[in-house]
C-alpha cells in the first residue's frame, strides 16, 4: 500500500446532483411488492395497538357511545316512554324527508314511525364519524411515529419496500376504524331491531341502503382520507403536527361522506349510490397510488430534505 495524495475527480458544486438518479419510487427496489410482507407490517402495527390500552379504550368508548348508548337512549325514549311532545316534534322534523323516503317509513303508531325514521335515516353520521375519527388518529401517528421512536431506521434498512410499508400501514389504520364500525353496526342493528322492531312488525334493520352505505360507500371514503393522512404523516416532523393537520383533511371529508351517505339512505336511487361508491373507489385508488410516493426511506430515517 502506498500513500498518495489523490484528489478525487469531483465537481466543485453538488448542485445539480451529478449522479444520475431515478426517483425513489421508480427504482426496482421500490416497485417490489410482497403481499405477505405487507400483512406483516399491518399485523405488527395492529398488535402494538392492542397492547396500547390508551388507544383502544377511547376507541371502544367512542364506538359504544355512537352505536349503542345514544341510539338506545333516544329510541327507548321514543318507543317506550312515549312522551307525546317529543314524538310530535320528531314527527314534524321528519316532514323534511323526501317523499320517497317518507313512503318507506314503516310502523303503525306515531312512535313506531318516528323511531323507524330516526333509526334508518338520521344515524348516518354515526357510521361516518366513527371510522374516520378512529382511523385518522391511527394513521396520523403511524409513519411519523416510526420516525419519532427511531424504529423508522429499522424499517428503512429492512427488505420491506416503501410500497409494502405504505400499504401495510394504511391497512393497519383502516382496520381499527372499519372494524369498530362493523362491530358497532352489528350492535346498532341489534339495538334498533330489539327496541323499534316490535312497533314496526319485526326485525327490519339493516335496510338495503345501509348495507350499500356500509360496504360500498364508507370504505372508499375511509381509504381516501387515510391516503391523505398518511401522506401528511410521512412528511410532518411530529405526531402532534400530523394530528393537527389531519383534522383539516378529515373534516371536509366527513362532510362529504355524510352528505353522500345521507343521500344514499334517503333513497336517491340505488343506481346513484352504486355510481357514487364507484367514483369514490376510483378516487381512493388514485390517491393511494399517488400516496405511495410520499413514503421514502429518507423520510423514515428523518433525513429527507
Amino acid at each position, binding site marked *: *500500500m*502506498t*500513500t*498518495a*495524495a*489523490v*484528489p*478525487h*475527480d*469531483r*465537481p*466543485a458544486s*453538488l448542485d445539480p*446532483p*451529478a*449522479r444520475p*438518479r*431515478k426517483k*425513489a419510487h421508480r*427504482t*426496482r*427496489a421500490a416497485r*417490489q411488492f410482497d403481499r*405477505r*410482507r405487507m400483512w*406483516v*407490517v399491518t399485523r*405488527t402495527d395492529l*398488535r*402494538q395497538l392492542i*397492547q*396500547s390500552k390508551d388507544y383502544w379504550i377511547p376507541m371502544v368508548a367512542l364506538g359504544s357511545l355512537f352505536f349503542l348508548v345514544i341510539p338506545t337512549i333516544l329510541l327507548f325514549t321514543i318507543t317506550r316512554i312515549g312522551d307525546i311532545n317529543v314524538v310530535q316534534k320528531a314527527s314534524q322534523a321528519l316532514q323534511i324527508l323526501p317523499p320517497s323516503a317518507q313512503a318507506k317509513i314503516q310502523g303503525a303508531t306515531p312512535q313506531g314511525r318516528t323511531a323507524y325514521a330516526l333509526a334508518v335515516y338520521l344515524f348516518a353520521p354515526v357510521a361516518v364519524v366513527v371510522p374516520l375519527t378512529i382511523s385518522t388518529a391511527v394513521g396520523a401517528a403511524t409513519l411519523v411515529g416510526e420516525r419519532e*421512536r*427511531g*424504529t*423508522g*431506521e*429499522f424499517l*428503512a*434498512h*429492512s*427488505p*420491506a*419496500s416503501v410500497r409494502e410499508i405504505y400499504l401495510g400501514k394504511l391497512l393497519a389504520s383502516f382496520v381499527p376504524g372499519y372494524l369498530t364500525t362493523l362491530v358497532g353496526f352489528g350492535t346498532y342493528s341489534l339495538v334498533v331491531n330489539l327496541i323499534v322492531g316490535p312497533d314496526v312488525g319485526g326485525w327490519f334493520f339493516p335496510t338495503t341502503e345501509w348495507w350499500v352505505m356500509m360496504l360500498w360507500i364508507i370504505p372508499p371514503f375511509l381509504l381516501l382520507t387515510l391516503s391523505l393522512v398518511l401522506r401528511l404523516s410521512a412528511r410532518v416532523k411530529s405526531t402532534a403536527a400530523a394530528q393537527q393537520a389531519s383534522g383539516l383533511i378529515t373534516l371536509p371529508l366527513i362532510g362529504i361522506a355524510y352528505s353522500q351517505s345521507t343521500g344514499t339512505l334517503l333513497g336517491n336511487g340505488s343506481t346513484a349510490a352504486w355510481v357514487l361508491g364507484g367514483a369514490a373507489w376510483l378516487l381512493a385508488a388514485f390517491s393511494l397510488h399517488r400516496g405511495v410516493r410520499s413514503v421514502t*426511506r*429518507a423520510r*423514515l*430515517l428523518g*433525513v429527507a*430534505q
Partner: protein
Amino acid sequence: MADTKTVMPSEPAGDAAPDDPTPIVSLRGVSHRFGTVDALHDLSFDVPTGRITVLLGPNGAGKTTAIRAITGALSPTWGVVRTFGLDPDEDGHLVRPRCGVVSAKPALYDRLSGRDNLAYAAALYGVTRDVDRHIEVAAARFGITDAIDALVGGYSTGMKTRLALARSVLHDPELLLFDEPTSGLDPESSYAVLDLIREMTSEGHTVVMCTHLLAEAEGLADHVVVMEGGTDLVVGSPMELTRRFWPHPIVTLDAEDPRLLDRVASFPGVEGYRRDPSGVRIELDDLRRLPDMVASLVADGVRLTRVEPHEPTLEDLYFTIRRQAGADRSVDNDGGAPIQSGRRDRAGQPLAPISTGHGELPPLGVASPSAEPLARTVDEGVAR
C-alpha cells in the same frame, strides 16, 4: 473541507482473505448533502469480506450516513456504492435481505415483547421456517432468553442492545452493520457486546462497525477507515497503517543524566533520535538491536532509568491522522500546498508523520512550533 486529501488507495481488497479478494462493499467518491451540509464528501473505501471494518471518527464524521448508503436506505447525491456487487439504490431489495443492521438507537418496538420484535424481523427478512427455533437460538446466544416474553419497554439499555444484535443476526446475514453498538452501555456490557461481534466474524460474517471510541476499535478492527467531515482520511489494516506511519520500532530511553544519551544517535541502526522532557525517543531499524545498545550504554557508565519499546496504538494513529488532516486543511485554507515531511517510503511516496502518542510527539510537517521533524532533530542531537 479541503478538496484534496491524502488517501491510502484501497488495497483493502488485498487485505481480505486471499481466496476472496472481492470487497463485499465498495464506495467510490460518495457524497451526500443535507441542505447545505455535506454529510459525506468524496468518501471512498472498501470492506474486505470476512473481516471487521471499523469506521472511526468523531461525531458528525458521516459514519451513520455511510452505513445508510451501504444498505440503500439513503441514496447518495454523488458517487458509486456497490454492496455485494449491486447498486443498493436500485437493487436494495436484493441487498437489504443480506444485511443485518444495528443502529445507534436500538430501534425496537417498546410495546411489543422481545419475541414479537424478533418475529417481526424474521417475517420481514423472509425467515419462514423454524421461526421459533431461530428466535430461541438468537435469544440464547445474546443472553436474553429470560426476558424474551417481556415488553421491550421494560428492558434495560444493555438488554435492548442485545435484542437488537439478536435481531440483526436472525436471518443469518452475510454483512453486519453496527452503528455504535455499545452506545449507552456500561463497560461490562460493552465488552460482552464486542466479544459477541468478534465471535460473529469468526463465523464468517463480515462486520462494519461505526464508533468514535478508540478503545472499542483497538483489538477489534481488522480494517480501519478513519473518517472526518464525511470523508475518509486513511483506510487500511491497523498494522499496515501503523507500519506506514511508524515504519521503525520506537523506543523511549531515559537516564539519570539524559545528556549522556545523545551518543545513541550515532549507534548503528538508529534511524531517528529526539530528546524531549520525558527522555529520548529513538527509531531503530530493528528492535533486536536494543539489547546491544543498552549493554553499550551501561558499559559506558550511563545509568539508565527507562528503556521502553513503544507499540503504537490505534489511538496514536487516529490522533496523528486527524492532526495531519487538520494541518493539511489549514494549509489549504491559506492557499498553500500541504506541507510534506520530505520523508519518502520505498515507493517514493511521502511518508506520514511520526507520533508516539497524541500530544507527545507532533507529526512531521505539521505547521506548529513544536512540530520538529524527527530526522532533523537526529542531526541536531548529534551536533549537540
